[in-house]
């Protein structure tokens, strides 16, 4: 990890991004690592450990926050939908190096159209802030820090004035299909055998 030439290409970054998204959703330890990524970069103090120690997720007393454990079923169900509609698992499991950009582009159309369909049909996604990106906005005291993240020169006290760099996304409703009790969500796509 020393030279910029080792930065992954755009097409390599697409599957990386999706992988990171789902791993963050389903794996708390992974999420903790991702969270660290967004901290300001510091000089490496030690060589990167090949396998990170399990992240200590316990918050010390006095008031322990109960951490929810995400059920894998919903995540698996979403993966199955993205595979069914967008062939996302097929796409991310392939090595892009051996394909021409035109072929990748053709497949990306399937993935894009399908992902958009899943987003549209199973979620209602809207922007957190309605202002156009780049406009100046004021955050008054008591703003919701979960839906608006402050970056940069975070000092002083509210009201905060700043530039909207990303509008944010909020899922205002989720309509995932209901699963029967016996359904094995781990089968993301059954094998197909034509008789």
């Amino acid at each position, binding site marked *: 990890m020393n030279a910029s030439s080792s930065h992954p290409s755009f097409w390599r970054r697409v599957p990386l991004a999706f992988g990171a998204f789902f791993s963050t959703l389903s794996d708390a330890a992974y999420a903790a690592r991702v969270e660290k990524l967004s901290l300001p970069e510091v000089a490496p103090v030690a060589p990167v450990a090949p396998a990170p120690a399990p992240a200590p997720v316990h918050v010390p007393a006095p008031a322990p926050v109960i951490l929810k454990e995400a059920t894998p079923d919903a995540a698996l*169900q979403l993966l*199955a939908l993205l595979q*069914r509609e967008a*062939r996302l698992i*097929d*796409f991310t*499991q*392939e090595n*892009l190096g051996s*394909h021409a950009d*035109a*072929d*990748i582009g*053709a*497949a990306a*159309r*399937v*993935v894009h*159209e399908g992902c958009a369909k899943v987003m549209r049909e199973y979620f209602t996604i809207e922007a957190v802030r309605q202002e156009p990106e780049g406009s100046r906005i004021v955050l008054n005291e008591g703003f919701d820090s979960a839906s608006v993240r402050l970056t940069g020169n975070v000092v002083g006290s509210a009201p905060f004035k700043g530039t909207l760099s990303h509008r944010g996304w909020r899922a205002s409703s989720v*309509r995932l*299909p*209901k*699963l*029967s*009790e*016996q*359904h094995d969500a781990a089968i993301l796509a059954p094998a*197909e055998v034509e008789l």
Partner: protein
Amino acid sequence: MSDINSTSARYAIGIDLGTTHSALSYVNLNESDGEKSSHGVLKVPQLSAPGTVEELPLLPSFVYLPHADEVAAGDLALPWPRAVQEADAPFVVGEMARSRGATTPIRLVSSAKSWLCHPGVDRRAAILPSDAPLEVARISPITAATRYLTHLRQAWDNAHPQAPFAEQEITVTIPASFDPAARELTMEAAQAAGYTSLTLLEEPQAALYSWIQTSEGRWRKDVKPGDIILVVDVGGGTSDFSLIAVLERDGVLEPHRVAVGEHILLGGDNMDLALAHLVARKLAANGTQLDAWQMRALTYGCRSAKESLLADSGLDTAPIVVPSRGSKLIGGSIRTELTRAEVSTFILDGFFPQVEASSRPAVRTRAGLTQVGLPYAQDAAITRHLAAFLGRQVAATSELQGFAGRQAQDATFLHPTAVLFNGGVFKSDLLVQRIMATVNDWLYMEGAEPARMLAGADLDLAVARGAAYYSYVRRGHGVRIRGGTASSFYVAIESAMPAIPGMEPPIQALCVAPFGMEEGSELELPGQQFGLVVGEPVHFRFFASSTRRNDQIGELLDFWGPDELQELSEIQATLSAEGRQAGDVVQVRLHARVTEAGTLELLAVSLDGAERWKVEFDVRGTPPQ
């Protein structure tokens, strides 16, 4: 309608039993008043994959009959318990049936509604899927319709436990072109599905009701007395035309349905398929052969490409990608494209050509004697079918109060003044404009004012919404479309003529039910008595005419124009032997009755009026002679 008002219904429910999709809409009666009605569309829980239940606004009208090894326990679970008798022969209805059936078509029942009105087959017999191998337990077209209707009833009861389906007012829609037998079969399917209080409504009328409802009273400004509204309804599998004239009675606007078209098996799905074959030929020219699975994916791709090309006039080509069947998506997928020119040539000029008002659909003589499949339209040009319909109905309004002399004497077709569109096909503005331009060309050639388009129709759900609204107006609210039966009906009587060798004895047609009989009315055939033999079925050849408006009941026709009378499946009367000796002859009179539900019944009534027997429509597939 006091008997209807007295029921405890809280909702008026409308069901669009479509060829490819069904939907349920409702009006909340307690929250509705006059022309303001509170309505909604039921989200129908259905299987979308094994063990997965989704709530969707439409229920695809498909039944899938899975192999015993295809589904595991619990895979077919729905939010409500399944009937016990299903345990031996499981089936799937809705989205999963559609998607499963795409890969295993031999187990898929589709277009059951088109089979329901196919006169060449026995519609009570288990014949679907028509190409299923022997080990698949087939079902009848009625059973398929019953299953869609049952699913919708169960979905309603599941969502509204406080307002059971059986206690609500139900309207089920049918194509305007359904003959009396197909109407009765739809009734039969609904009754088998547990529907008790039920009315049938023609789909183009439902579309107009929906338009009236959506306008919340403003429709009175958009139409005026003397208007003739042409309803053009092109669904997934069928096209249906109706003419509705607007009268004024005592200062109140009163729409009258004056004519309905023939049953045309031609719709949006044909267009997608035609495009897919075009693109497949292009691919084949470059050496790429598609298998059946890829062909279906291509048809799906063509539909979205067609929709984007027809919607966005700035677009010249739309890419289509046929995904690989295996997991190698990249490299295995086939990329191609559809151009604007191709869509214009194929869809606009193939299905909506700008033809003369005098053009008529081409009719090819059928190659074989037996028809195994559905009798699809032989001419794909919807505008030619429309020209034929308007030409046939040129005199549809001549007898109507206030319409005499409105149309020029030398008009060759009926001049509509307004057009209402229905069906997803017309989401494309280009197709709407093409029909409007074609009709207005015809009008211009005969010196008539151009027709205007009635805007604001909900193309996908109008029929279901309109049906629910109709249940509501039947309770005395809002405007009601009048019309009655859209055909007159005849039985064949053999002429008393000396037999000529080699010639069939000529027949006369006896009018047994006149045009425009309203729901709830009954007429007696005067003069004529029939002697029926107890226990022996008597058959009559049966005819309908959509143009002979003035024939009265009892009128005997000696001759008629070649297109005036269409022969339907025959009818038969059987007198039960109860209290009589088999072989006795009973004198009866014929009665024609239109039920409150909207079906035509012919009755044999004993001379003292004490006994009545129903004359049955033959639905066992004796093809018309």
